[in-house]
């Protein structure tokens, strides 16, 4: 008997929520199959956190039907709380207590017997590479360590559905990779993971299915590959030293479009031979290319194609810290 296999772990239909005049969720429908990683992708303010808060019983929806492992968060909050674990956007750890004490606190609140709780705490500290820091106060932990402790605390109660609300926001690239490995490790245990992120590469990396949330509506769902198929192919970006070289190249290459400061975008990313042919033509004509980069269609393009506006992430790329997804998906050749 396994009802989870037959029915989705999470199912949401017609979910609406407003704060005063501001509509945050405007009729969201989604289904998450048990044992899969589902990713809600969207920019800041799209309604991701609000969705997680409603599903995890800490916020009341205005309208819509929600079921988490067969229970309604509104009518049977305790039944839902008993099967879920939530790791929020901001690490909810107790800074005055040590890592181990934080885990033991969770064990006590999950009503585990004392010895069982100790065993579980040590197990998780080992697994999350926190054993050396186990008896230090959590306030002294780095951002990545706090996030790992936070997730470990969520796992003490062995939840069957885990909500991860922007689990890597604010982490350095190495800590992000570690978190990704941990999340992938969780899927092996048969738990259902509901992940939200504003990082397109994160969704690409972790999710079985992705739903793109924009201004309170789901604008597309599918696997990363399915979503990428919905946008036109990639392009090659060429950077030149001066105007003369740029003009020469523009006349030479069909379909090339200006792309800002002394740069051209040339459609197509299909393989090495096409690239070689293009470079040979430029070289024969004596055009010197400073740098070249190949852009495969990424979820950023998907997002743009679906919503008609870029992600907040992409808009801010020049002003904010260099985002990891940009460098990860762009292969630079010099």
């Amino acid at each position, binding site marked *: 008997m396994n009802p989870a296999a037959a029915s989705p772990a999470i199912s949401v239909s017609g979910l609406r929520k407003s704060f005063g005049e501001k509509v945050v969720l405007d009729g969201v429908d989604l289904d998450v199959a048990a044992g899969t990683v589902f990713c809600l992708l969207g920019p800041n303010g799209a309604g991701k956190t609000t969705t997680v*808060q409603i599903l995890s019983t800490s916020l009341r929806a205005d309208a819509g039907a929600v079921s988490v492992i067969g229970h309604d968060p509104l009518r049977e909050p305790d039944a839902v709380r008993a099967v879920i674990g939530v790791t929020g956007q*901001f690490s*909810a750890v*107790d800074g*005055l207590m040590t890592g181990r004490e934080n885990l033991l606190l969770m064990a006590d609140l999950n*009503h585990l017997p004392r010895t069982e709780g100790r065993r579980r705490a040590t197990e998780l500290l080992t697994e999350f590479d926190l054993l050396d820091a186990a008896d230090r106060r959590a306030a002294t932990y780095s951002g990545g360590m706090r996030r790992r402790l936070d997730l470990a605390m969520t796992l003490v109660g062995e939840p069957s559905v885990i909500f991860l609300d922007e689990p890597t926001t604010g982490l350095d690239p190495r800590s992000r990779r570690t978190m990704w490995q941990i999340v992938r490790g969780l899927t092996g245990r048969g738990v259902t993971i509901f992940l939200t992120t504003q990082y397109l590469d994160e969704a690409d990396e972790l999710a079985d299915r992705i739903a793109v949330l924009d201004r309170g509506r789901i604008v597309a769902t599918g696997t990363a590959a399915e979503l990428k198929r919905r946008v036109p192919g990639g392009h090659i970006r060429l950077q030149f030293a001066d105007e003369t070289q740029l003009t020469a190249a523009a006349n030479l290459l069909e379909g090339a479009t200006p792309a800002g400061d002394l740069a051209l975008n040339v459609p197509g990313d299909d393989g090495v031979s096409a690239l070689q042919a293009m470079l040979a033509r430029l070289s024969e004509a004596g055009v010197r290319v400073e740098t070249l980069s190949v852009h495969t269609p990424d979820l950023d393009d998907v997002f743009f194609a679906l919503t008609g506006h870029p992600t907040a992430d992409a808009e801010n790329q020049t002003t904010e810290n260099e985002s990891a997804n940009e460098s990860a998906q762009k292969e630079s050749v010099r």
Partner: protein
Amino acid sequence: MSTMSYAARDSATMLRRSLLHTVRYPVTIIVSLAVPALLLLLFVGVFGGALGAGAVPPGGKYIDYVLPGILLMSVGYGASSTTLAVNRDMTEGIIGRFRTMAISRSSVLTGHVVAALIRTLASAAILVGVALLMGYRSHADAASWLAAAGLVALLTFALSWLAVAIGLAAPNAEGTSGFTLIVQLLPFVSSAFVPTGTMNGAVRWFAHNQPFTPVIDSLRGLLTGTPIGHSGVIAIAWCVALTVLGFLWAGSQFRRAGGGAAR
């Protein structure tokens, strides 16, 4: 296990956590002890001679007069640290985490309130010890001492619920400073240091009718035998009213709170 015993077990867990915080971050309890102790020294040693003339009958000692007020100051400081502790839980997001767990809802707040009671009663006991060393003498019997302790506990309980509510409602630590200021200043505009009769006009009216004065007068009556009159009843009424207000407010704030990640 039944729901009741889960609630008790969760509350005990939360209480242990709060007491551990007190041990880990002892500065709050040190302040709530040291400041009243210093004021006791200051008022008895420096101002006592001058203030005592108007406050105590001939032959009486000013320290006997001032101790109840000093005890209330420690209750006030205790409430300030409770507000800060609850606010830290709120801003750290750990209350948001507790709200998504299958635990007794009341335990989160009950833990803070019971810890505050323990902390404040311990501070008060130490302050009485300091006062005894400085020459405080009381002829009160055990029952009167017990009643005095009960009244201090009742006021602590009331202020702690208010403190919890304000800690939940304030967006950050600065937001709790208004409450802190009020509970720390109220003793000065009460019968703590001088009789309200010596004050003028509006100040006298306020001092006479604010909640700390009847509590102080009742404590003084219990410990030094001065007449209590209606003060006892008024003190208890204030405590009950403030408890109900604080409790209901804290409850509604807790239900409303979206946790650390409110968007």
